[in-house]
């Protein structure tokens, strides 16, 4: 699920990165003739809508952008397991519990596909995890909000996954082959996530007045956060143009957001809930819905670490990593012992 649909700059770069990042320096070093030729070849491939593969030459800025975007996406999948994992032990039935476990396991799997796609760009898994655990790397801000009741789990599936799908489908055509292939795999599995959430809500909406109110309350709390998932308005997204030029980003933030709103309005109607926006209405001239102002100050405050659950999420993630250290070490020790044993047996 869950891409951060735009590129948030991570924290300060480490020394190794700033030392080698010649292309991004304020005063770039002059390019050699060979580099100019390689750049021309690369541009030509992008213009022809061709694919770039790991061992092909690519501009350093393209590589860095992809590493940042794919690793943020991977981190989002991993952190995204936490708000829902919170409800596995409290799911209302065995059926819902099995579904939720499968979904959370998928998120873990999506994180793994994406980490290995990012590793093809020459960054190690440990480097990426360190970025996440030290708080330097970003992940989707949507997970810094709490899941207060069971209806939240349904709404996450319907709206959060719905927004993520809207954003991830164009990424299947990304110019970087490994990312595009990972996204195809992710998108195939994603549809189940959205449908199970919507269906769980349909069931609740057939319940008591209190249960219906829970669904409406969850929709009220998540709607605006989901609209913000698509990132700042196009006018405030200076990096978007470069991402489009490189064939990494295919559809602009505002266009994706509009598609999401237009797709969601009829779903809300069938479900029987109100989307909490008095300005939301059909615009006959545009043949699209108009919608109200997103609170970007609140959004950026959460991105920058001050959301309701930022500390809790990162704390849970770091604890899980630290608690698992002995397991990772034991697995390596076991593998080495087995390897030794087979050498001895062969001798």
């Amino acid at each position, binding site marked *: 699920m869950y891409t951060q649909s735009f590129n948030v700059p991570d924290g300060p770069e480490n020394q190794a990165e700033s030392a080698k990042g010649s292309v991004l320096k304020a005063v770039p070093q002059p390019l050699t003739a060979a580099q100019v030729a390689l750049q021309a070849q690369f541009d030509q491939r992008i213009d022809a809508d061709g694919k770039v593969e790991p061992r092909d030459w690519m501009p350093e800025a393209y590589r860095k952008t992809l590493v940042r975007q794919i690793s943020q996406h991977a981190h989002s999948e991993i952190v995204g397991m936490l708000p829902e994992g919170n409800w596995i032990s409290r799911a209302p039935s065995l059926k819902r519990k099995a579904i939720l476990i499968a979904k959370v396991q998928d998120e873990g799997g999506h994180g793994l*596909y994406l980490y290995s796609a990012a590793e*093809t*760009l*020459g960054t190690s898994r*440990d*480097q990426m995890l360190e970025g996440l655990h030290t708080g330097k790397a970003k992940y989707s801000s949507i997970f810094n909000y709490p899941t207060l009741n069971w209806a939240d789990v349904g709404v996450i599936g319907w709206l959060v996954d719905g927004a993520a799908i809207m954003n991830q489908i164009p990424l299947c055509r990304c110019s970087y082959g490994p990312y595009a*292939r990972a996204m195809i795999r992710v998108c195939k599995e994603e549809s189940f996530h959205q449908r199970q959430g919507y269906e769980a809500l349909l069931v609740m909406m057939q319940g008591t007045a209190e249960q219906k109110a829970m669904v409406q309350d969850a929709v009220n709390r998540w709607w605006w956060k989901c609209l913000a998932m698509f990132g700042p308005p196009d006018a405030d997204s200076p990096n978007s143009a470069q991402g489009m030029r490189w064939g990494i980003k295919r559809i602009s933030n505002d266009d994706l957001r509009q598609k999401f709103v237009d797709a969601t309005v009829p779903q809300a109607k069938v479900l029987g809930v109100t989307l909490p926006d008095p300005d939301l209405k059909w615009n006959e001239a545009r043949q699209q819905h108009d919608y109200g102002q997103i609170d970007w100050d609140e959004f950026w405050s959460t991105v920058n670490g001050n959301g309701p659950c930022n500390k809790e999420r990162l704390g849970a993630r770091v604890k899980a990593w630290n608690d698992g250290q002995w397991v990772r070490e034991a697995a390596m020790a076991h593998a080495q012992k087995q390897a030794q044993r087979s050498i001895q047996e062969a001798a």
Partner: protein
Amino acid sequence: MSSNTSTSTNATATPSAALKEWPLWEVFVRSKQGLEHKHCGSLHASDAQHALQMARDVYTRRQEGVSIWVVQSASIAASQPDDKAEFFEPSGDKVYRHPTFYEIPDAVGHM
């Protein structure tokens, strides 16, 4: 996902990080009996048995396969993209290797 073979000797990783990580494996899945194993991605695992179990959980959660191969990424030898021209070009001018090179009278029918 593509083969991670390019980065198995990771230029940017610090040596200590490289030692701590489980090695990288490439995963190939046979989707059904009668078809070939196809590369589907990579993962980290401590040994071959572990890699097979991880591959099952990561790449075949929905019965996508009936058989899995795993091989350490470091063991894969790959052609260089820079050498693409010299490496693959020799077959480019041998059009006589294709059936369409040969003109056969229509009277012969399908051949």
